[in-house]
């Protein structure tokens, strides 16, 4: 008898835990691609100040976030580094509305050495042993970097030097630690103190790669959650957000 009542208590406890939404109701979970890591903090802070809705940030590569969303991750909005993944979510019926471009990302060549100004020709030098870029298979900034190398007809001569970060953040980590002497990364990340103080960057000609159109999409199918998500969705297109994005090196529609 004791055992059954004990079991009932445990069940009751868990059911209580399960349906206690009040603490979560004013929160929004944003899945954010890693190139947005720094700008999104400022945007989310402004959003919270304006609407009172707190944001939880989950930063990872767009591909991983999309895979997680497809397996039911409890995210409300995806800010991807490209349009491919948001489009895929929409086509699979996991998003209530078609994705929209909120900013265009820019690619830079970054050297972690404060005394060198990075140039494309430097990649061919023997002193450059490793060139870091994000995984072109999953990270849009990685495939843009491959296009730049192809554009300069350098891909075959430097292929053996390439090392692939899981995403833009890991690519930066390879460079900041000095493990790679140079690399391609998102312009939006080179303004951070750890990267700006240590090295130099060169903006790459935007004609040498396909524009990195970054898409935002609401995810999930519960209408109640959508109002909060929609508030954020609208906020990212506001002048205030677009100004912040521009400050972090994105180009926006004006």
């Amino acid at each position, binding site marked *: 008898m004791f055992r059954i009542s004990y079991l009932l208590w445990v069940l009751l406890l868990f059911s209580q835990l399960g349906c206690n939404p009040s603490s979560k109701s004013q929160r929004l979970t944003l899945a954010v691609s890693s190139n947005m890591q720094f700008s999104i903090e400022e945007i989310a802070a402004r959003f919270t100040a304006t609407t009172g809705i707190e944001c939880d940030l989950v930063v990872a*590569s767009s*591909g*991983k976030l*999309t*895979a997680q969303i*497809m397996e039911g991750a409890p995210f409300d909005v995806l800010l991807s580094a490209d349009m491919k993944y948001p489009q*895929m979510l929409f086509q699979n019926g996991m998003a209530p509305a078609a994705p929209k471009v909120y900013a265009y990302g820019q690619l830079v060549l970054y050297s972690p050495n404060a005394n060198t100004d990075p140039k494309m020709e430097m990649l061919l030098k023997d002193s450059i*042993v*490793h060139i*870091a870029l994000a*995984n072109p*298979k*999953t990270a849009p900034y990685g495939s843009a970097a491959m296009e730049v190398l192809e554009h300069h007809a350098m891909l075959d001569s430097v292929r053996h030097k*390439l*090392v*692939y*970060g*899981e995403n833009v953040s890991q690519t930066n*980590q*390879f460079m900041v*630690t*000095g*493990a*790679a*002497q140079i690399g391609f990364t998102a312009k939006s990340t080179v303004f951070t103190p750890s990267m700006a103080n240590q090295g130099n960057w060169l903006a790459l000609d935007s004609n040498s790669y396909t524009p990195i159109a970054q898409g935002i999409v609401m995810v999930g199918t519960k209408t109640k959650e959508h109002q909060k998500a929609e508030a954020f969705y609208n906020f990212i297109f506001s002048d205030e957000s677009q100004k912040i994005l521009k400050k972090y090196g994105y180009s926006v529609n004006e």
Partner: protein
Amino acid sequence: MSWEPLILTFKLALVTTLILLVLSIPLSYWLAYSKARAKPIIQTLVSMPLVLPPTVLGFYFLIAFSPNNALGGWLSETLGIQLVFSFPGLVLASMLYSLPFMVHPILSGFTGIHTSLREAAVLMGKSKFEILLHVLLPNIKPALLTGTVLSFAHTVGEFGVVLMIGGNIPGKTKVASIAIYDEVEALNYGAANFYSLVLFAITFCILLTVYLINGGYLKKFWK
């Protein structure tokens, strides 16, 4: 989808295990029989990879191996060795990562041998090396097998360290666990499934063989 990451994984595991086996026998011998004061410290250090997250090892390796730092700079300038983003670097990192899995079984093998066996050999005038080779090692065969297989399997299952210092280079540092992670992220579940199934099947067979041998189930086939 290719066999390359799988072959690389088993190559890494094989090289790591062989070097570890050679190094761990003297180390475990020392840990088992030495009365040095530093022994508890060394013992603790050997066990550290068991409890530390692989990211800690990966992080310190990334910094230590970087050509900007003392160790990495010295290696690349004087010996021309690049440890970060390279196969030798992965071997070194895997050795540290799998060290306790080799040392612990061998150590408990050594301590499990009754002292009378060693004492008898000493009385017969055998040298320490002869005793190790002809008395101790033959008596701890199951421990050696367990250590070898556990280190091998543990290296096959390595992920965090390789993710942090490997750089995902096909044929050099892109091992199966990384390839799986990559394919899942690229939403190629078919390829991820292929690598995962092969890994599952092979490691299952390896572990099963150990349990069969150590459990004495295979005695009737060979003695």
